């Protein structure tokens, strides 16, 4: 094992493979220009037993930034696909798009908008993120309430395994069940199985009209109960988010679609809300974007998953225990709660409230916490079989173990 730091080792890999270096978020990374060069980099990493990390735009990696790792000698070397970007195929009338992983999400969104379509996940806040990074991180937008999570709209992928194998799964068509859905496995795998090279997504029609509301509520628990009521009253809501900030707790939501329908639905939503909500027409997309940015994972420390039936209760517990300045951001459609703090501060201690929410939550995931804490954190308690399956898959696809540092650094590949 090399004694040098990540940056030095990046240079070593670059020299060995002939790959140029680049910089993402002040990190030195390898920036291969094509498949061949990426394969060279991975080959070199295998030979030297260096672990590597596909980094996208680096926005999701606050918790394991290689420079934040105690033991720099074991920090993974970032690989950026910034030079492997661009839309590969978008045939008008097919309703799909295929693009390279390094394509910035906002560029992709712009490209499909020109044909009257939009991406299936509303990640307007993700200005710098790449397609590959968003998929690898398993992110979804608040409009999952209407369209489901982004992973449901991934139609196929091409990836590179750690041994340089190029492998594709799925396809570019809206409907296809040929072979295993390995693209579902890669989505959300956080770079532990393979490097995503390209992906095909199903597109949605660009809405004619958007509308949103924002309304103060007493607290998160009652706000969530209200959210469930609103959902019952209007099943076509596109998104519904509860936020707790310095300025109080607000329930916000939006509609999108055919203009006539949105107009009629917005009246119904207002009636169901009662009170005096703020209502946005023209500014609705701006509001949505602002909210999306607030809800970026890297602005939070923890992600809690909960069944919708338990969510209100859980929020009650959190509100009672969290300091008042801690931000909360709740995606009411998914039962997904993001817990502050704001900014880029890194959490270094296990919070006291974590012990008390166990029964109500189905998962607890650290986002912006220090790497060593992540390693010892076992709050989510996957079953032994689940852990075993994950290990087997990781070892099966990456026997050299050069990717597997990311998810669980304590685990040595068998």
């Amino acid at each position, binding site marked *: 094992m090399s004694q040098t730091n990540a940056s030095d080792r990046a240079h070593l890999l670059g020299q060995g493979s002939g790959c140029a270096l680049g910089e993402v978020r002040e990190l030195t990374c390898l920036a291969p220009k094509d498949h061949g060069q990426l394969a060279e980099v991975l080959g070199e990493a295998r030979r030297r037993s260096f672990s590597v990390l596909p980094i996208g735009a680096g926005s999701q990696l606050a918790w394991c930034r290689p420079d934040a790792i105690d033991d720099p000698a074991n920090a993974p070397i970032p690989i950026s696909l910034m030079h492997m970007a661009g839309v590969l195929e978008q045939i008008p009338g*097919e309703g799909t798009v295929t693009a390279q992983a390094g394509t910035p999400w906002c560029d992709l969104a712009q490209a499909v908008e020109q044909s009257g379509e939009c991406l299936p996940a509303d990640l307007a806040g993700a200005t710098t993120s790449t397609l590959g990074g968003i998929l690898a991180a398993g992110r979804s937008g608040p409009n999952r309430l209407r369209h489901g999570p982004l992973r449901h709209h991934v139609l196929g992928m091409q990836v590179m395994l750690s041994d340089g194998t190029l492998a594709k799964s799925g396809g570019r068509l809206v*409907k296809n069940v*040929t072979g295993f859905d390995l693209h579902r*496995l890669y989505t959300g795998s956080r770079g532990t199985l393979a490097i995503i090279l390209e992906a095909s997504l199903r597109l949605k029609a660009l809405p004619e009209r958007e509308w949103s509301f924002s309304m103060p509520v007493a607290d998160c628990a009652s706000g969530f109960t209200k959210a469930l009521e609103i959902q019952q009253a209007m099943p076509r809501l596109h998104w519904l988010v509860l936020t707790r900030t310095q300025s109080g707790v607000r329930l916000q939501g939006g509609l999108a*679609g*055919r203009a006539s329908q949105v107009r009629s639905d917005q009246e119904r939503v207002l009636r169901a809300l009662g009170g005096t909500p703020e209502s946005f027409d023209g500014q609705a997309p701006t509001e949505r974007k602002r909210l999306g940015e607030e809800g970026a994972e890297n602005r939070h420390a923890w992600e809690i998953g909960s069944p919708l039936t338990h969510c209100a209760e859980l929020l009650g517990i959190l509100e009672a225990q969290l300091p008042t300045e801690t931000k909360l951001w709740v995606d009411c459609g*998914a039962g997904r709660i993001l817990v502050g703090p704001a900014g880029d501060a890194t959490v270094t201690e296990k919070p006291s409230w974590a012990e008390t929410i166990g029964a109500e939550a189905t998962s607890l995931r650290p986002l912006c916490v220090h790497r060593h804490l992540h390693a010892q954190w076992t709050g989510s308690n996957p079953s032994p079989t689940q852990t075993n399956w994950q290990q087997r*898959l990781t070892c099966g696809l990456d026997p050299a173990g050069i990717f597997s540092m990311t998810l669980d650094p304590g685990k040595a590949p068998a």
Partner: protein
Amino acid sequence: MTKNWIDELRTIVGPRNVITGSESLAWESDGLSLVRGMGQAIVLPLDTEETVLVMKLLAREGVPVVPRGAGTGLTGGATPVEGGVTVGTARMREIFSIDPVGRLAHVQAGVVNSDLSVAARPHGLFYAPDPSSQAACTLGGNVANNSGGPHCFMHGSTTRHVRGVKLVDAQGQVLDLLASPADPEGLDLVGLITGSEGMFGMVTEVQLNLEPLPEEVQTIIAVFPSLDAACDCVSEAIAAHIEASAIEILDKLTIAAVEDSIFAAGYPREAEALLLVEAEGGALEVQETIDLVLQLAKKHGAMEIRSAQDKAERARLWAGRKGAFGAMGRVAPDLYVADVVAPRTRLREIVALAIKIAEERNLRLGNVFHAGDGNLHPNIAYDRRDEDEVRRVLEAGQLIMEACIERGGSLTGEHGVGVEKMTHMCDLFDDDDLNTMHRVRDALDPKRRMNPTKVLPLRACREVRNGGLPFSPMGNLGAKT
């Protein structure tokens, strides 16, 4: 020679639920009756606990396992394998719970698809994926095959509706992914398992998303003077980002078969092609969608357009569509159902090609398909006793698949690969793609005991290097009576 482990199976699930007698012949095929196979036994466990014991025993004995739901699959995925044991979910029929707030249902794998929607209805909910066999097929089978259906145009295939599963793996270990959060923790195993055609284990319980019943539904049929015109109409509607819930096309032969059956729906027999479109959602958006369809249908020469006047008529129109496959039994004793996917911009071209391929081989071809998704079902009626006809059918099937793949299409949209399309996997995937799938499979089932000889083609050189398999590949596609 007595097989003690079969007696042990009997102790686990009860003697009536282990079938080894002559009646096991009833299980020799699934919906693909062209392919047959006989294993050593059929076992019908009642729940996850029994399944665990059964799977542990079979693991101990090194016996291959074929999971089976209702056996309505159309690619031979549930065909028994030589030396194997078929483990069926037909007795696992309990709906454990329906959560109206979270819009989730927790069911056993053997619950029939349409039974779930019936149970969910009092809560104002329904289960969206509606394969044509929904009156009989099981939800566990739907998960295994990532089944589709007409309304998947709007709602998406099964995989978009599976929230969690409980699976018993090849070793008899329980993988419980039921109480999952909205996004998976760690790897998305549920997404991997859905559509894996029973090769990673036996799904015994499923947690599914339910949808609110739509406020408004409208259904129309439009009669076209030609199949080409109907296809063009659909391609244009897709390009216009139509937001219908289902877009189906039926051709003349299919219409005649349906109208002769008990599912006669009042489809006009003189139609060369019939477009069946449904829109659901808010009243205003539904009306706009239907208006768009009407406008496009007229533009493409539709001769008659009719909309369903009430629930009963809508139900009839759909019953006819869903009975279409079975109704083809009136045309000939056997039916070959292809399941290719065409790029939606090239519908007309590929449908026409399929017709030409069948005509050249003097075969009777009926087309009934999920046009909105580009998912074609060229159905060829034949008689399996006619050896030459069987040969021509298989040849036509192969040519249709190849033609589709050449034009950017896919092998299967909703039926899966099974035995039928296994050898065609190489047309779509190269060695590295398939090796990667094998690696995932070997990671989870190193002895390859789960549903062997299905989905992934076995390439001789590799198999021999890996030390061979405990059974012989069937390869009896096209077996004669």
